[in-house]
């Protein structure tokens, strides 16, 4: 191999994670400076495999980014999908128990007129997209510009030079180990890749991002909290699809997660979107601060699907794809920042550190009024991409310039008004929290406990009997990992599982893990089926004893989403 002419272990700009944000960064950077050496690493086997979202996309940032970088993008193959399904019918329904539904869309519209945060839920003019397809499309655009994208490579850690106090690269995961961790004949030691500038765009709860936050000492003003989103794509009959309509989005509050005053009370709601080709996508998003030890969002989704209002559209349908993800919901105050003094002694707090920038869900740029983060991921990605080429001669300035740009542009403006929404509900519950949140921006910063701390011995009552078929769900997510590798999930201390979790919470991870990874073996709780993991990371956020750690498996493992 003739590797001499070029050092293949170094990149000028290294982007970790090929989601829409990371690819927006790559596309923007490359379109500004076509000689920039830009490498994108992606842990999924192919682009789009690990991206999942609703998704109702606020399209402006994407259009802006693509219009600038590739003016003729609308003529490219795959662009028709993005612009193909404009929202024309948008409703918010309050499902009051199993039967009653109240259309509260008019309240939302009124809210919009009055400039209340409630109005942010209005989706007219947005587009229903599959984020997997969007990612594939952006990947093609990036490749055509000359960006280097390498799927199937998992980054295990970020490399920090303590004496220089500087991040200098990343390390890939070791591959070809057997279950016990012994090298097989095809063992490949994790390579080190150095870079001048690194953009972290791993999505929610990024492994490298958290490693970076810990190593360089970034701080969040309040704890990051998450929701767990479960989504299914259901193929229905032509008649049912026509009944639903081709440009429709429905969001729901209430059943099965919340019933005012009398409970249950889990933050969140449901959704149903037109998905084309006689497909409807249905999902539920549940705040990971649920307090019920036996709660599983998938089971809640089953109840949701059986609500007559939803059931009328999907009766007799076939689930053709399914997936789960977490959503970072802490908002503005939960963005990790590095505090330093800038020009003239002014304190600046950078979203990143020196030559490293954090974008999208990794940073926590989700607007909880809109229940959207995708537009901010693309916007922050575009900004980081622009900054990365600007700062190539002075990489250590990148995080600072980037943070300034975030503040100048829409991202921070977008996040700020919604900054207290999630915390208010976490503090006061949905019944009081929802009304209170309309004046959220006048309420001072509230800290909230981390999701794992909220577990109690209270039971959630489901209406649909029976066990959820996790095995089929995993198959519909297309998950696969090489079987004979060390488990990428670990339980730190069995003491908690055996003596605490068992009596108090009946080993909650066995219930809530959507992929059925955990099992009781003897008296232990073990990640018995790591190869089923769909990379949602709910376990490491929700284990009531903060006793589970998720790391990356060999490259290419995980779900294989096609149109999530």
């Amino acid at each position, binding site marked *: 191999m003739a*590797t001499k002419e070029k050092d293949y272990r170094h990149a000028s700009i290294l982007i970790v994670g090929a989601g829409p944000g990371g690819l927006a960064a790559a596309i923007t950077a490359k379109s500004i400076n076509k000689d920039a050496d830009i490498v994108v690493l992606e842990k999924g086997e192919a682009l789009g495999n690990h991206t999942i979202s609703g998704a109702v996309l606020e399209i402006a940032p994407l259009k802006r980014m693509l219009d600038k970088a590739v003016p003729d993008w609308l003529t490219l193959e795959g662009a028709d999908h993005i612009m193909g399904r404009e929202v024309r019918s948008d409703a918010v329904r309050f499902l009051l128990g199993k039967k009653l539904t109240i259309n509260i869309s008019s309240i939302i519209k009124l809210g919009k007129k009055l400039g209340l945060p409630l109005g942010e839920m209005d989706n007219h003019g947005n587009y229903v997209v599959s984020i997997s397809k969007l990612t594939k499309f952006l990947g093609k655009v990036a490749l055509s510009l000359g960006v280097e994208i*390498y799927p199937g490579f998992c980054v295990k850690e970020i490399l920090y030079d303590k004496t220089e106090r500087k991040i200098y690269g990343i390390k890939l995961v070791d591959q070809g180990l057997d279950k016990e961790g012994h090298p097989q004949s*095809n063992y490949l030691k994790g*390579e080190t890749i150095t870079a001048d500038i690194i953009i972290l765009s791993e999505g929610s709860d990024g492994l490298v991002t958290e490693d970076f936050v810990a190593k360089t000492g970034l701080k969040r003003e309040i704890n990051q909290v998450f929701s767990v989103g479960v989504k299914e794509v259901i193929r229905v009959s032509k008649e049912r699809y026509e009944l639903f309509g081709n440009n429709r989005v429905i969001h729901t509050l209430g059943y099965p997660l919340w019933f005012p005053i009398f409970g249950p009370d889990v933050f969140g709601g449901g959704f149903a979107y037109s998905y084309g080709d006689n497909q409807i996508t249905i999902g539920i998003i549940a705040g990971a601060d649920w307090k019920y030890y036996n709660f599983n969002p998938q089971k809640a989704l089953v109840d949701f699907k059986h609500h007559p209002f939803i059931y009328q559209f999907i009766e007799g349908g076939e689930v*053709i794809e399914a997936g789960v993800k977490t959503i970072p919901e802490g908002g503005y105050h939960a963005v990790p920042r590095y505090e330093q003094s800038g020009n003239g002694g002014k304190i600046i707090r950078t979203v990143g550190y020196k030559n490293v920038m954090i974008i999208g869900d990794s940073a926590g740029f989700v607007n909880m009024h809109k229940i959207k983060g995708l537009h901010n991921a693309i916007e922050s990605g575009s900004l980081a991409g622009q900054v990365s080429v600007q700062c190539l001669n002075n990489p250590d300035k990148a995080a600072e310039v980037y943070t300034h740009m975030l503040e100048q542009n829409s991202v921070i403006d977008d996040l700020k008004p919604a900054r207290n929404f999630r915390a208010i509900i976490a503090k006061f519950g949905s019944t009081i929290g929802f009304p209170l949140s309309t004046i959220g921006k006048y309420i001072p910063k509230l800290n909230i406990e981390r999701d794992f701390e909220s577990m109690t011995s209270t039971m959630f009552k489901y209406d649909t009997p029976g066990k959820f078929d996790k095995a089929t769900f995993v198959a519909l997510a*297309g998950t696969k990992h090489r079987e004979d590798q060390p488990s990428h999930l670990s339980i730190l201390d069995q003491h908690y599982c055996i003596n605490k979790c068992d009596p108090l919470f009946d080993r909650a991870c066995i219930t809530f893990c959507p992929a059925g990874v955990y099992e009781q073996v003897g008296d232990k709780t073990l990640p018995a089926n790591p190869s089923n993991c769909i990379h949602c990371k709910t376990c490491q956020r929700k284990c009531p004893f903060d006793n589970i750690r998720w790391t990356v498996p060999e490259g290419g493992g995980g779900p294989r989403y096609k149109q999530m």
Partner: protein
Amino acid sequence: MSNYIVLVKQVPDVTQITGNAFDPETGTLKRGALPSVINKLDTDALAFADKMRQASPGKIVCLTMGPPMAKDILIYSLSRSADSAVLLTDKVLGGADTPATANPLAYAIRRIVKDMFHGDNNYMVIAGMQSVDGDTAQVPPQVAEELQIPCIAYATDVEFTSNKFRIKKIVTGGNQWVSPKTLPCVITVAGYDYPLFASFQRSRWARGHAVIHWSAGDIKPTLFGCDGSKTRVIKVFPPPKSSRKNKHVTHIHEFVSELVMSYKKGGFSSVFETGEADYLIPSKRADGTFNRNYEVTDKEVRLFNRVAQALSKLGITEVHQLNGPLVDRVQAILDEKVPKRMMMEMFEGYKITRPSYTGDIWVVAEHDDEKTNDVTAELLGKASNLAKLLDVRVGAVIAGRECKHMLNELVAAGADDVYIIENELLKDFRPGPYRKVIADVIKRYEPQIVLFGATPQGRVLAPMVAYRLGCGLTADCTRLDIKDNTRRGDIAILAQTRPALGGNVMATICTMNSKIQMATARPGVMRKIKSDTSRRGNIIHHSVALSESDIEFDIISTELGGGRTKLTIADVIVSGGKGLRNRDNFNKLASNLSSVLQKKLNCTVEIGASRAAVEQGFIDRIHQVGQTGTTVSPKLYIALGISGAIQHLIGIENAGIIVAINSDPQAPIFKHSDYYLIGTAEEIVPQIVEALKQ
């Protein structure tokens, strides 16, 4: 120092077939809906070559033939271990069957040797045994045949000692270590479980590395594209709906009692309808000159019927009355428009009443020196059936060191003539001398059809013989019929139906541009006739001069499993896979379950295994079930920790009831089972054993 050429192929990823992949109207698989990937066995071949290179350094060159997008799999190979990559791409090379693929590949290999190895013949061609889309296993042996070099098939490991490679290969019932006597040679890999990982550095290097593009003009093949092909796909259709129940078991007790009941009822039926052949040559058809009820496709039958009706309305009764002006008159009567060209073809076709092929129907027998194997009798059964329709004789060819004692079996199973070739050099099965003698006897007597078993032996021998004789060959047939394709002037031809794309589609294929129609047929699918020891047949001795130089590799050692298993006649088979993790576990679980089944069902039970389990050393090769092992048809098949590679699934297709236990909810075997249980065998087998005891 050696060099290595690895043949790779881009295939649709059949592991990602979902509901979306099928055309809702026709029920056929949309190939374009699946992502394209490198063929799994070719990744094994690449790792195999890499292992060889570690012992004997040299270049690895990857070669593929395909559309421009096949470049992706070359990048894949370069980012793992290849030094150079050649993409053979040209419109004129498209639409090729196996000989028309093997020929350009062989010409490209010649050019690689000349250009990149500077004429050094010290090289090996390494390929996956077969591709997942065609799964014919024909191309590598045919490349060897074109290059006139040895082919060592079904390799699973390699060692380098005293400056020579020793290759471990699968043979029926065991393993064999062999060493090629001369280089170059072709090696096909049946499995090597340590595929290479891409390194980041190599991936970046590969991205900037120019893949070498060659067109047909650069290599000047002699047989290529549609025109060079010897077979033609006539129709593609969805496989018969699997009768497998696909029941996800959650209650062990209910399951066990249901299982025992259905076992006693005799289990479920196989997926293949072999059907009784039904055909009359045109001259014998009672109901008139224009009866064409035996076309390959139903569509043609309907078309001919309508035209026949129209002709009868017009009072046409004789073939010689058909002419150009008549076309318009027929067209006027038909409710549906039939193009003029098509109608002229039909008219011309009507004039042909004699079969397109002449000669007998032959079966190439397979044996273990003591007796012939089951598939031989099955093929003779089928051949007898077909021969009756064509009014020709059934021939059987048997070759070996000594075979006289097996002649009666062949006659009893349906052979009218037995061609026997005995030679000391045919002692062990080696493709080199065998292909020579079999091709020779076929050439001498010119039968119209030659059938081989789709066994490890037949699947390497048949492609070489077919290539040598310039004949078409269809692999792994599950149905053989005599049909007409009148519009093309083909009368009484062999319609060869086989599954493709991992069993997700069926294709009916006919031979063209050949004197002889050849096919291999899956073991356990065709039906034997009742053995009749009173039958008498002709014995024809045929001799072919063989010399030591025809022997292409030395057999260093053969490890055959102790004795024989009765896998083919067992009532129940309990099979274990790699999921059982170790030998002790395998033995314990498999034997516990077998002994309790034996008592409960009062039946014979045998232990089987997947290839991977054998490779891991859990059990001897003699127990291996599947395409490179034994094809089985027990009343009940229980698979423990077997994921269900296509080669394994093919081997159990004819089992009555299939039960699968696997911890992976996505295990492909579940789709092919009647009952499946998700979980580890350690967990589930004891529960089943307990339930059976009650």
